[in-house]
């Protein structure tokens, strides 16, 4: 106890700003929890609003009418918080309660390993960031199966099995897509990837459009956007894995795809959209929190927002695929496309064009 106190005493203001504040900032504020929450509010509202505009109607309007109903989602959150939380009679209570928490945790974890600025390397070890992000993203189906199984509902179980089938079928394309970018950038460190793109002046989406397209498709699939909103297909399996959940736990289930969408979009803008380009911090600025983390992070965030806005807009255009069609695409065409992406990267590296 005394040791800790003395340690705290010895911490000067400078070292606080330099060593302790950035990780807190990173995890709690941006791109961590607070921005995730704000992003959730905004994104769900945007999705409803964009869909409504296409569909000849107004969308959320009456909560804060002057601002187009932008705090409708906050009102929904309040409603969810005061709803009764029901545990079904046949449910495995322990698993039923812990599964959404685990899902949420594994949905949020990848955010820590996605660098949104060169300063990131000073906070966390960034050398293997891509290698860590990929397994964290694709581990979620285990908990979705747990969710569906614990609910003791056939529709939940069918929905969670669908989710697992789909995520597994899109694992290989995802890995191949990221692998081709790793080959291209010559590093599993995402910061090096961004420096590569900024150094050449060409974003990854131009260097390897096949990988970018593939990543986009996997992103749509994994986050359950249309036309791949299959595991929660309302007219088929009610609400998929979340059928039996109510109150805040249902809110978790509803917001999880958006959180996944957020981490995917950040990764997409880092890997394919040139990261924090056009802000290129100098070596001196990169060592500061503002110049090395916040400003570049803002750029990455805006790019990610645009990607997310496009993906949520797809709801207004597409119906959903059937599960076997989606799985076939995942195991078949998408894998070939993945090999083509890898081959393209190898060809680019080999020929020395980049």
């Amino acid at each position, binding site marked *: 106890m005394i040791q800790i106190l003395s340690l705290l005493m010895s911490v000067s203001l400078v070292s606080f700003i330099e060593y302790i504040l950035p990780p807190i900032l990173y995890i709690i504020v941006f791109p961590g929890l607070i921005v995730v929450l704000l992003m959730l509010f905004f994104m769900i509202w945007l999705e409803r609003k964009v869909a409504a505009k296409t569909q*000849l109607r107004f969308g959320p*309007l009456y909560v804060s009418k002057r601002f187009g109903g932008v705090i409708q989602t906050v009102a929904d959150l309040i409603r969810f918080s005061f709803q009764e939380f029901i545990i079904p009679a046949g449910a495995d209570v322990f698993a039923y309660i812990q599964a959404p928490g685990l899902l949420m945790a594994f949905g949020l974890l990848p955010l820590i390993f996605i660098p949104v600025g060169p300063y990131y390397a000073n906070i966390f070890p960034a050398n293997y960031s891509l290698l860590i992000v990929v397994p964290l993203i694709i581990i979620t189906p285990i908990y979705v199966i747990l969710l569906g199984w614990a609910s003791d509902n056939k529709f939940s179980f069918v929905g969670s099995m669908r989710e697992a089938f789909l995520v597994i079928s899109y694992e290989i394309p995802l890995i191949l897509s990221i692998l081709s970018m790793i080959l291209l950038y010559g590093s599993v460190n995402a910061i090096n990837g961004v420096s590569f793109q900024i150094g050449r002046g060409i974003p990854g989406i131009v260097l390897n459009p096949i990988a970018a397209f593939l990543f986009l498709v996997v992103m749509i699939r994994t986050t359950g956007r249309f036309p791949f909103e299959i595991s929660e297909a309302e007219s088929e399996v009610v609400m998929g894995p979340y059928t039996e959940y109510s109150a805040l736990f249902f809110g978790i289930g509803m917001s999880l795809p958006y959180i996944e969408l957020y981490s995917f979009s950040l990764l997409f803008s880092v890997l394919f959209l040139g990261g924090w380009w056009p802000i290129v911090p100098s070596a001196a600025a990169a060592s500061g929190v503002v110049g090395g983390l916040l400003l570049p992070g803002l750029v990455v965030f805006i790019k990610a927002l645009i990607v997310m806005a496009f993906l949520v807009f797809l709801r*207004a*255009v597409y119906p959903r695929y059937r599960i076997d069609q989606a799985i076939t695409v995942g195991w078949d065409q998408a894998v070939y496309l993945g090999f083509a992406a890898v081959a393209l990267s190898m060809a680019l590296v080999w020929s020395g064009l980049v």
Partner: protein
Amino acid sequence: MTGRKNNRIKGHVDALATGFKYLAEPNRMTLNYPDESMNLKDNYRGFFAVKDKTCIGCSLCEIVCPPKAISMLDLTDAGGKKKKRPMIDWGLCIFCYFCVDICPTDAFQTSQVHDKAFYSETEYQTVHGEPMQYPYDYSKRPDYKEIYESFHDVAPDDPSAGSKKVVPKFDKKRGIKYEHPGQP
């Protein structure tokens, strides 16, 4: 537009382009109901009332009423004269206007009011638009005045009270456009 051969890429591009077209130029057809309400056409079948002076108490409206929403009440007027008058149960009425049309003396006064709200079940049952007590309290008879105006005045419990009145206009591009007649 019907035919099976389709270019997939063109199909995706067309679908996305159509979506963007409506996103850029939203063609909203919603009527923001409590804030705006429609000025309905003259023949709209809304609430109606019986003109007491014209009614002859023939019971035809009661006979023809499909949901049996009308029942004839035996009333005594100020002069001690007995007469039958229809009592309308708005909870049953389906607004088919069979009663209005079958009336041999055209004693029904119609209105375009369709969104009157009731607080309780007992308010459904009215004579001349005035709520009756349930069970029927014959001692509290309404005085025979023209109730017609009461339907046209916006009642305090009317959901569309104070709303902007709009007129629907057909439009070649937008289907229906709601216009504010009061505004230029």
